[in-house]
């Protein structure tokens, strides 16, 4: 049986790929392509955050009675990543390659650290605590994200 959080892991990789495209285009000064890729990247990231914040985290908190702790840290890191994406948008508008690259570089490390923590610690916790519930969380996550990975 696949874990309920599998769609989230899959979607992490999808976001990474679009990030790499956006960053490479900014680096090459191809701003039109960078604009498209950045918009797509931010839309995917927001869809991912929303899925976690609206579906996974509440389900986990209900199943475990645990509020704050790891989920609060994940929410805080989402906010940090949103700040950095906003910096990327400002740099994109200004066609400032250095500022875009710097914000993207910072975001990449933060994002990867965040993903490692989720994939190695939080998601396994969610998978085991949600296994006992009758809710089809895996289905809900898949419905929101799996289709997006095809685009």
């Amino acid at each position, binding site marked *: 049986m696949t874990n309920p959080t599998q769609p989230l892991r899959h979607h992490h990789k999808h976001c990474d790929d679009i990030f790499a495209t956006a960053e490479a285009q900014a680096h090459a000064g191809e701003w039109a392509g960078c604009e498209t890729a950045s918009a797509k990247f931010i839309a995917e990231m927001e869809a991912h955050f929303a899925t976690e914040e609206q579906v996974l985290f509440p389900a986990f908190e209900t199943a475990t009675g645990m509020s704050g702790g*790891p989920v609060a840290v994940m929410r*805080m890191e989402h906010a940090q990543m949103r700040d950095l994406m906003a910096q990327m948008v400002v740099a994109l508008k200004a066609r400032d390659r250095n500022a875009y690259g*710097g914000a993207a570089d910072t975001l990449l*490390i*933060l994002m990867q650290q965040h993903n490692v923590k989720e994939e*190695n610690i939080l998601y396994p916790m969610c998978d085991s605590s949600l296994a006992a519930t009758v809710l089809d969380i895996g289905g809900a996550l898949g419905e929101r994200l799996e289709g997006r990975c095809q685009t």
Partner: protein
Amino acid sequence: MHPNLSFEQAPPISVPFRFFVTAPWFGAAAGLLLAWLGADALASRWTSGALALNHLLVAGFMLQATCGALLQFVPVAAGGNVWRPRLVAGVAHPLLAIAALLLAAAFLFAARALFIAAAAIFAVSIAGYVIVVGFALRRTPAQGPTLMALRLAVAGLAVTAVLGVAMATSLGSGGSLPLIEITHVHAAWGLGGWALMLVMGVSYHVVPMFQLTPPYPVRLAWTLPPALVAVLGLWSWQLGGDAAPWQQAVLLAGMFLASVYAATTLVLQARRRRKVGDPTLFFFRGAMGCLLLIAASTLWFGADADADPRAAVWIGMLAIPGVFVSVISGMLYKIMPFLNWLHLQRLGGPGTMPPNIREMIPERAMLGQMRLHFAAVALLLLAVPLPSLTRPAGLLFAASCAWLGVNLAGGVRSYLRFRDRIVAAGTTVAA
């Protein structure tokens, strides 16, 4: 359920940074010493100059940087709670620095009292460090090949230190230990069991993360660290007396493992999804290239390595400035700006916009220093067959290490400048 989930275990920024800003100056000192001593120092690995230079780099530069990095890495990436990190760093950092200087001076001036002093300080500081970090690594609930490699690396540091302290004590007290055999084993554990093991474990974690590469193959990641320990165990057989003829096969097995790691890393980096390169990637590639060159050189020298005393100097140049100084420099350029950003962001709270990581240390400065470093490594290697190049090679290496030191100090200044700005704006949320 995960028994001890702690996301917020990062130590105060001063804990790793005090080690990081110190490390490069040992490299600068080693370069200047080489320039001062000249070609005679590199006639063999056993000259007093070579031993002093070597220990400025391994017990100075490398030990400082790796001990500092591990105090950050163990809690954040391996989930281990380090007991009172500020105190551990406050004691270990100056003691390790003093011990490394004393040891280099002891070799240089053949001063018995200095050997004893260095041995005593290393014994206390490394024992304390190994116990604290080893305990954190033992108790962490995390799992995986990175954790296994880190545990083995700390054990490797302990073995290296025990042998080193025994030899320094013997040199200081006129003892009669078989120093040549112990040195072979001590160097193998230090470079292979501690430094390479640590780099492997950290690579498993950061290579995919920084460049969006595929992960290391699982079976390989689990196999390499214990295989390396097995090779080192067989290599240590020579402590019992003369080296057996099969020791050459053990050496080649060790080189094979190192090559597999280096080649895998290069292949993964070639398959990275991230298209944009950065100084960390280039430093890593240079280091892996040098590691492969060590294996190729060992094959080339074959059993004749003992015939030419300069063969070991060549290997040492490849291993220490080539592999470890390179990979450490690359990692420092990534870790330090990101820690700056993270700590400033947490200090200021939500909505704070600290400068991004490229504004902490300018990329141009990092790339310039990197080019100088690799030029210095090339010249150091050339100085092995062409001794007239020794002094310029030493000066170039000193300059590249000093530039690294200046770049890292600039990173600290950036942190302090923006920290003061946040504090002055009164938006601090956490100390």
